[in-house]
C-alpha cells in the first residue's frame, strides 16, 4: 500500500483507536516510506495530544466569580416565581437589527424624552402575589416545570430581557441579573458597554436601558419610580392610575412625570436632555417644570430651570434601540442637537410595541401632572422574582433521568472502523439544561456503521 490517501484515512482511524492490526502494519509500512505522510501523521498526533493536555488542566474560577456565585446562590434560595413563558418582546427586536454607529454625543449631559403610544395589551406576565415583606408568594405547586401563578407588584419592574452582562446591586452585593428577576426598591441596575436591558412593569409599561446606563428603582410608593444616574433610557408608559404618575428622577431638577406616554431620557454628568415622540410630560421640578409635547425637546442642568421646549426630529429619537447591542462599543451619546444617529434602515423609533401579543391599543397621551415632592430611595427589599431558567425560551426541568446514565462506555470509538453515514441534522433548538440528549437532532442511531 503506497497510496497516501489511504494512509491519511488510516491515520485518522488510528486517531480514533479503530485501526486494526492489519491496517496498522500497512500504515507503518507506508509511513516508513513516505516522509510527507509521516509529517502529517505527527502533526495530527501533536494536535490531538495538545487537546488531551488541555484536558489535564483545570481552571479555577476567579475569586470574584466564586463570590458572585455564592451571592447568586443565596439570592436564588429566596421564594421565586417563574418567568413568563411568553416572549413579550423578541430578543431579536430588542437587540436591534442595525449596526451601532458611534453617536456624536457632544453634550456633557443629555436628556432625551420621547413620548408615544402606550399599549393596553393584556398582561402576559405570570402573576406574583406580594407578601407584606415584599417577597413573592408563589401560588400553585411550583414544580420546576410548571408555570407559576404570580401577581406582580404593579409598581416594580421585572428584567424581561437582559442582553450582555447586566449587573444588579442590592444590599451591597453585586450580581449578574438573570432575565425574569423581579426588581425591588433601591435596586441599582447597570449595563456595561456591551449590554442592554428591558425592564417591564405589570401594566406593560417598560423602560429600556441603553449601554453604559445605570438606574435605581424607586419604592413605588407614589407610583412607578426610576432614577437615571447616567446613560439613556427609553420609556413607554401605559396610562397610569389617577394620582400615581410614573416618575423619572423623583425630586430632582430633571424630574419627569408621566401619566401615559413613552419617552427616552439620557443623562451625562449632571445634564439631562429630553425629547418626545408623542404625548406630553411635565419636565423639571415643581413650580419650574415645563410642558414638553410630542416632537419637542428640552434640557436641564443643575440649578437651572428646564429650557423652553423646542422642536426636534422625532425620527432620530432613541435610535440606539435599533442598534445591535453586540456591535462595537459605543462612546454613547447623541449629536449636539440632541439627536441620536438614525438607524441604518432609517426606521423611526418604535412607537407601537412590537412585543404586544395583540394589536396595540392607543391610549390618549398623558396629561401634565403637577410634580409632587421627590421621594428618596427606600431601603432594599428582598427579591421577589425568579432568577430562573438560565437558558433558552423553554425551560423544562431536567429529565428525571437526566443524570447521566452513561457512566461507562465500552464502545470507545470501536464502532468507527468505517465512517458511517450521517443521518443526523444539526441541533437548532435551545437545549434544556440537564436534559438527556437535548433536542433530537433528527438523527437516528446509525445503521451504516459497518
Amino acid at each position, binding site marked *: 500500500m503506497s497510496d497516501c490517501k489511504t494512509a*491519511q484515512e488510516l*491515520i485518522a482511524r488510528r486517531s*480514533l483507536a479503530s485501526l486494526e492490526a492489519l491496517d496498522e502494519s500497512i500504515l507503518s509500512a507506508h509511513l516508513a516510506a513516505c516522509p510527507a505522510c509521516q509529517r*502529517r501523521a505527527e*502533526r495530527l498526533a*501533536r*494536535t*490531538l495530544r*495538545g487537546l*488531551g*493536555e*488541555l*484536558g489535564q*488542566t*483545570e*481552571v479555577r*474560577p476567579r475569586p470574584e466569580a*466564586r463570590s458572585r*456565585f*455564592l451571592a*447568586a*446562590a*443565596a439570592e*436564588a*434560595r429566596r421564594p421565586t416565581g417563574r418567568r413568563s413563558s411568553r416572549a413579550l418582546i423578541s430578543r431579536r427586536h430588542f437587540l436591534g437589527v442595525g449596526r451601532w454607529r458611534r453617536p456624536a454625543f457632544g453634550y456633557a449631559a443629555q436628556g432625551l424624552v420621547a413620548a408615544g403610544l402606550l399599549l393596553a395589551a393584556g398582561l402576559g406576565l405570570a402573576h406574583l402575589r406580594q407578601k407584606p415583606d415584599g417577597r413573592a408568594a408563589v401560588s400553585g405547586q411550583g414544580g420546576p416545570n410548571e408555570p407559576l401563578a404570580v401577581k406582580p407588584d404593579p409598581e416594580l419592574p421585572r428584567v424581561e430581557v437582559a442582553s450582555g*452582562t447586566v449587573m444588579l446591586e442590592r444590599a451591597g452585593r453585586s450580581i*449578574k441579573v438573570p432575565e425574569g428577576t423581579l426588581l425591588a426598591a433601591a435596586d441599582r441596575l447597570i449595563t456595561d458597554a456591551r449590554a442592554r436591558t428591558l425592564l417591564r412593569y405589570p401594566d406593560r409599561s417598560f423602560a429600556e436601558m441603553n449601554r453604559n446606563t445605570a438606574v435605581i428603582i424607586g419604592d413605588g410608593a407614589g407610583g412607578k419610580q426610576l432614577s437615571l444616574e447616567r446613560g439613556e433610557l427609553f420609556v413607554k408608559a401605559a396610562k397610569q392610575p389617577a394620582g400615581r404618575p410614573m416618575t423619572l428622577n423623583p425630586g430632582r431638577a430633571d424630574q419627569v412625570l408621566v401619566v401615559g406616554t413613552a419617552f427616552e431620557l439620557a443623562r451625562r454628568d449632571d445634564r439631562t436632555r429630553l425629547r418626545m415622540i408623542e404625548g406630553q410630560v411635565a419636565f423639571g421640578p415643581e413650580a419650574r417644570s415645563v410642558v414638553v409635547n410630542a416632537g419637542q425637546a428640552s434640557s436641564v442642568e443643575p440649578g437651572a430651570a428646564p429650557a423652553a421646549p423646542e422642536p426636534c426630529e422625532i425620527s432620530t429619537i432613541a435610535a440606539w434601540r435599533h442598534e445591535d447591542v453586540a456591535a462595537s462599543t459605543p462612546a454613547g451619546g447623541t449629536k449636539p442637537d440632541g439627536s441620536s444617529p438614525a438607524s441604518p434602515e432609517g426606521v423611526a423609533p418604535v412607537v407601537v410595541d412590537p412585543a404586544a401579543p395583540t394589536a396595540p391599543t392607543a391610549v390618549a397621551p398623558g396629561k401634565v401632572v403637577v410634580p409632587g415632592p421627590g421621594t428618596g430611595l427606600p431601603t432594599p427589599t428582598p427579591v421577589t422574582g425568579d432568577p430562573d*431558567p*438560565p*437558558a433558552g425560551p423553554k425551560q423544562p*426541568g*431536567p429529565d*428525571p433521568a*437526566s*443524570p*447521566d446514565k*452513561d457512566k461507562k462506555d465500552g*464502545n*470507545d*470509538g470501536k*464502532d*468507527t472502523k468505517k*465512517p*458511517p*453515514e*450521517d443521518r443526523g441534522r*444539526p*441541533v437548532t433548538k435551545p*437545549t434544556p*439544561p*440537564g*436534559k*438527556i*440528549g*437535548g433536542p433530537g*437532532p433528527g*438523527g*437516528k*442511531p*446509525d445503521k451504516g456503521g459497518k
Partner: protein
Amino acid sequence: MPDEAELLSRAAAGDGPAAGEIYDRLAPPVLRFLVAMLGDEQAAEDVLQESFLYLFRNADRYDPGQSALGTWLRRIAFNLANNELRRRRRRPTVSLDTPVPADGTVRRLGELLADKSAPPEQRRGALALELIGRLEEKDRQILILRYVEGLPPREIGGLLGIGPKTASMRLWRALKALQSQVRRDSPDSL
C-alpha cells in the same frame, strides 16, 4: 468528607458553606470545559454560575446511582453553553485574546504562543485550540468533547442527543476536517 449528594442537598437547602464546597470541588473541570467551548472567560464563568444554580434548583432530581454529580453538571453546562452560543448567534472566534486553560488558570493564546519558556504542553494545547477554532462549530465541539474531555462516543451521543454510532461518525468527520486543517496550517514546530 460529606459525599456529593449530601453536599448538594445541603446547598440546595440554603447551606452557604456547602454551596461553596461543592462549587470548589466541581467548578474547575467544568470551567475548563466551558472556556474551551465558549472561548470567553467571562461568559464561561457566567454559564458556570448558571449551571450550578440550575443544579441546586433541581437537586431533588439527582440520583447518585445514575451518575456522578460532576457528569450531570457538565451536561447542564454543555446545554447552557450551547444556548449561549445560539444566543450570540455566532461561533467563538479565535484571537490572540482567546483564553486557554493552563495549569489551574487561564492564559491568553497570544501570550502563550509568544512565551517561549511556557511549558510545552501549554503551548501545544494553545496551538491545538487555535487549530480547531478554524473548524466548523460542530466539528470543533465534538473534538473538544472527545479529546479535551475524553468522553467516549456514547457519552458524546448522550450530550448531543444522537446515538453512539452517529456520534462516532461525526467524530470521524471532525477528525478528517482537522486532518485537512493540520495539513494546511500546522507549523512543524507544533
